[in-house]
């Protein structure tokens, strides 16, 4: 063995953090938050420890699908700047190791969620992993510019799973919590795509800004924002909504639609002139948007416990 080979092998020895990075911890934080809200606002009590375990395994299930995504996409991750530091690209973890870890954690998380709660929650988690890995990663991501819309569905399931963990069922309120994140993802992501120069094209991943142009992307942002507003207001009319949620939802959606209209009215020359100020503001606001909607559901739920919230 030559010296250089020896050095390379040493560099590729993975630490614990490299395996943890396979689980996409930043994505997991959104999963934990929305699943937590879904579970807490559900109209059925859950033992706090069982609830904690359920959230943990929902997060691990989400992380497992992240690891499987890194296994399948190792080739295109190596071509994009944003994903160059992923352990499957740096060589710290081989794609095969990511695959084994992903499958093992997928099985573990689904079984543990079933044992801790019920089969509905476990089945929803299994479907989420299947959807993200097979439908999104393997099938649609490299095929259609609507990939982000479909991919967003996988990220939208956690509040529904949290709800099912507490109640064992799927209801209009839980479906609307799903729809909120689902409809939020496209405007959020496409606003980012309008001002960040990404290199999806290098990796042959079709993105709307590249395949259909930026004008069409602006139209799509407006369309999805209107759908999103309808979902957000509709959610406020269900049993988990109330005046406090509705007040915030109406104000935020009015502001969000105004931002989408502003983006729609601009062309690229306007956008370049002020360094994409409107798009940047819209994107920043979208982060607060999702956090506050789910946060207000929690506030409404807390108020209801004191006999104040709800309709």
């Amino acid at each position, binding site marked *: 063995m030559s010296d250089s080979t020896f050095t390379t092998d*040493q560099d590729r*020895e*993975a*630490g*614990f*953090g490299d*395996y*943890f990075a396979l689980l996409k911890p930043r994505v997991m934080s959104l999963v934990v938050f929305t699943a937590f809200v879904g579970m807490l606002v559900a109209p059925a*009590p859950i*033992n706090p*420890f*069982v609830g904690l*375990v359920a959230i*943990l395994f929902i997060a691990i299930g989400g992380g497992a699908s992240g690891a499987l995504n890194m296994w399948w996409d190792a080739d295109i991750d190596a071509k994009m700047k944003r994903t160059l530091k992923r352990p499957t690209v740096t060589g710290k973890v081989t794609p095969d190791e990511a695959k084994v870890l992903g499958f093992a954690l997928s099985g573990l998380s689904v079984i543990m969620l079933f*044992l*801790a709660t019920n089969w509905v929650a476990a089945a929803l988690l299994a479907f989420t992993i299947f959807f993200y890995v097979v439908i999104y990663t393997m099938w649609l991501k490299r095929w259609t510019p609507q990939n982000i819309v479909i991919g967003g569905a996988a990220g939208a399931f956690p509040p529904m799973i949290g709800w099912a963990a507490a109640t064992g069922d799927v209801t209009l309120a839980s479906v609307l919590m799903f729809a909120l994140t689902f409809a939020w993802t496209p405007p959020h992501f496409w606003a980012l795509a309008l001002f960040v120069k990404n290199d999806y094209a290098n990796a042959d991943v079709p993105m709307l800004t590249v395949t259909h142009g930026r004008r069409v992307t602006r139209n799509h942002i407006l369309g999805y924002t209107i759908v999103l507003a309808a979902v957000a207001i509709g959610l406020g009319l269900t049993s988990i909504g109330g005046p406090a949620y509705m007040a915030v939802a109406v104000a935020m959606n009015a502001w969000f639609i105004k931002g989408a209209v502003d983006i729609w009215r601009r062309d690229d020359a306007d956008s370049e002139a002020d360094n994409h100020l409107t798009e940047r503001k819209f994107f920043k606001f979208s982060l607060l948007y999702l956090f506050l909607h789910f946060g207000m559901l929690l506030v409404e739920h807390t108020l209801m416990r004191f006999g104040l919230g709800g309709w």
Partner: protein
Amino acid sequence: MATTPIRATHEIHTRRLSRNLGLGIVLVLFVGLVYGLTIAKVGTDPRDDLGADWAAGQERAAK
């Protein structure tokens, strides 16, 4: 010929330690979690002696 002195602890050892330690902690936590889950599930199952008291308490609180 210049030689590189052998060090007792190389960076590679630190990484291996972090991996082994991390896995150890995860396994211990998992055991604790399954134990805790068992207590929580049995303790809140009305069909079980342990959980019957809890269920009765919940019913009283609901009234």
